[in-house]
């Protein structure tokens, strides 16, 4: 019991620290990705390549004046950001990042806790997260906030339906609600992943899930709740300082959660695309070694003076990382973690890519799209999957 408690506390601390760092740097990555899509350098001033920008942002947000307008409904105004960030962080507790690991003779799962209703838990928590936005919009007592909150409610209720239906189809194939078992059923390689797995490959379901996930997290092209040109800043117009930061962090935490869910439900979680005996364990080594060699090559013929030192340093770091992936002791847990992060990262990149590419929907188009196209499509997909699963078994 004592060791269980200790392990749980340590795991929770580790997951929390990693999640918070990822949240901060995800924003840096997003600004960089969008900047490069738009052919500009992005954040560049604070630290090398703007790497300390998240830290500067945190200091800025912490030290800003925390203004509460006199006309707000105070209890709900204060409750809203708290609800948003709590619900956003809560769902990470059931996400499994890898198989069991052994540290100092203690075996444990790379997951805070495994519920046998894990998928439903994530859905329940995310559906409660809507209240944060709704209440923020209403309690601010401001028409722009109110319209932002109303839009987001309508949008989230509408998109939760295709999202749930898209989740249900891979569950029919895997026949479990536990996220850990879900991954274990997809072990064996890319053709066992739900997105390609028979009897009915869940490609459509995956696409519907991603589209609905964009709307659930209020991202471009579905970021109507915070459409700047018509609603100022939407539901968080009246929020400043850390309360604003809570909404901001909640949005990014939700992005991470839906990306993790997509990875677990459709892309086989931490499972490598092909078995290790055909060399999948060498992929990270190759990637890091390649990156290291490229950095060393550019360091040997520097374009700027400081590249002479910085690029070789990074090159050597990448080569060390490549060497670490070759050690058999750490391979057992580092490789699953690598694949999980690679898949989740790819989906997160897609989020940013879309933000840099697509314009925003009009509101009636948004509603028409989900009810007239996405919902029937998800329904049809679920029906076909159900029939085929019943027919095969």
């Amino acid at each position: 019991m004592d060791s269980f408690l200790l392990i749980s506390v340590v795991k929770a601390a580790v997951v929390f620290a990693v999640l918070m760092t990822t949240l901060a740097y995800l924003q840096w990555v997003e600004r960089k990705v969008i900047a490069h899509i738009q052919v500009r350098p992005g954040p560049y001033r604070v630290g090398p390549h703007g790497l300390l920008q998240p830290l500067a942002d945190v200091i800025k947000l912490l030290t800003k004046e925390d203004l509460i307008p006199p006309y707000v409904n105070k209890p709900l105004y204060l409750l809203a950001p708290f609800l948003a960030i709590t619900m956003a962080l809560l769902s990470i507790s059931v996400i499994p990042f890898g198989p069991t690991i052994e540290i100092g003779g203690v075996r444990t799962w790379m997951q805070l806790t495994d519920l046998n209703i894990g998928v439903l838990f994530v859905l329940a928590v995310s559906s409660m997260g809507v209240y944060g936005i709704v209440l923020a919009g209403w309690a601010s007592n401001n028409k722009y906030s109110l319209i932002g909150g109303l839009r987001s409610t309508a949008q989230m209720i509408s998109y939760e339906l295709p999202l749930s239906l898209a989740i249900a189809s891979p569950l029919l194939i895997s026949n479990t609600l536990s996220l850990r078992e879900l991954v274990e059923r997809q072990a064996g390689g890319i053709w066992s992943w739900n997105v390609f797995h028979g009897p009915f490959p869940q490609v459509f379901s995956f696409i519907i899930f991603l589209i609905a996930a964009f709307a659930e997290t209020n991202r471009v092209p579905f970021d109507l709740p915070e459409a700047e040109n018509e609603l100022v800043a939407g539901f968080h117009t009246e929020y400043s300082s850390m309360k604003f930061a809570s909404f901001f962090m909640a949005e990014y935490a939700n992005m991470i959660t839906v990306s993790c869910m997509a990875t677990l439900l459709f892309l086989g979680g931490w499972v490598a695309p092909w078995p290790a005996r055909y060399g999948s364990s060498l992929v990270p080594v190759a990637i890091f070694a390649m990156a290291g060699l490229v950095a060393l090559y550019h360091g040997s013929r520097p374009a700027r003076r400081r590249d002479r030192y910085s690029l070789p340093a990074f090159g050597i770091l990448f080569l060390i990382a490549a060497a670490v992936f070759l050690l058999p002791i750490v391979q057992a847990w580092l490789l699953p973690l690598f694949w999980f992060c690679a898949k989740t990262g790819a989906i997160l990149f897609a989020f940013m890519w879309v933000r840099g590419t697509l314009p925003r929907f009009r509101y009636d188009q948004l509603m028409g799209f989900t009810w007239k196209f996405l919902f029937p499509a998800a329904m049809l997909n679920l029906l076909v999957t159900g029939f085929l699963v019943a027919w095969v078994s």
Partner: protein
Amino acid sequence: MDVILFLVFAILAVACAINVVVQTHPISSALSLVGVMCSLAVLYLLLGAEFIAAAQVIVYAGAIMVLFVFVIMLLNAGAEVRKGRSVMAQTLGAPLLVALLGLMAYFVQRLFPRGDSVRFGGFTGGSALDIGRALFTTYLLPFEVTSILILIAIIGAVVLARKELE
């Protein structure tokens, strides 16, 4: 531990339920109702019915109550004014409440006379598999009848809400 959790969430549920009636603003009442739903979900969880607990949060707290709040916000309903109670409510209210509680206590006593207490986590039919099986075998007819009832309600709502065609 179970008993403590039960007491905490049972008291929370009752307090929220009272708050639903006492509050004058519709939004506060609706949020208290969300509190009731979530506390009930925890009670289901304590009994071992994890699927029902999740469904309770997703369907009631997550979907239906969000719709309630949405409609209240859309209609921009303000706080109600507390009116003076009628003579009948003042005189008969408290005795009727006591009578109702007494009647309920009596029926509970009649239904479960042996007085065996609830075992936390003792309910075994709470998994998604068990509930799905029960719905499609034992309770197939009530389940389908309920579905048709809901379908009728949806069609009725659409017909009522549709704009008159000239």
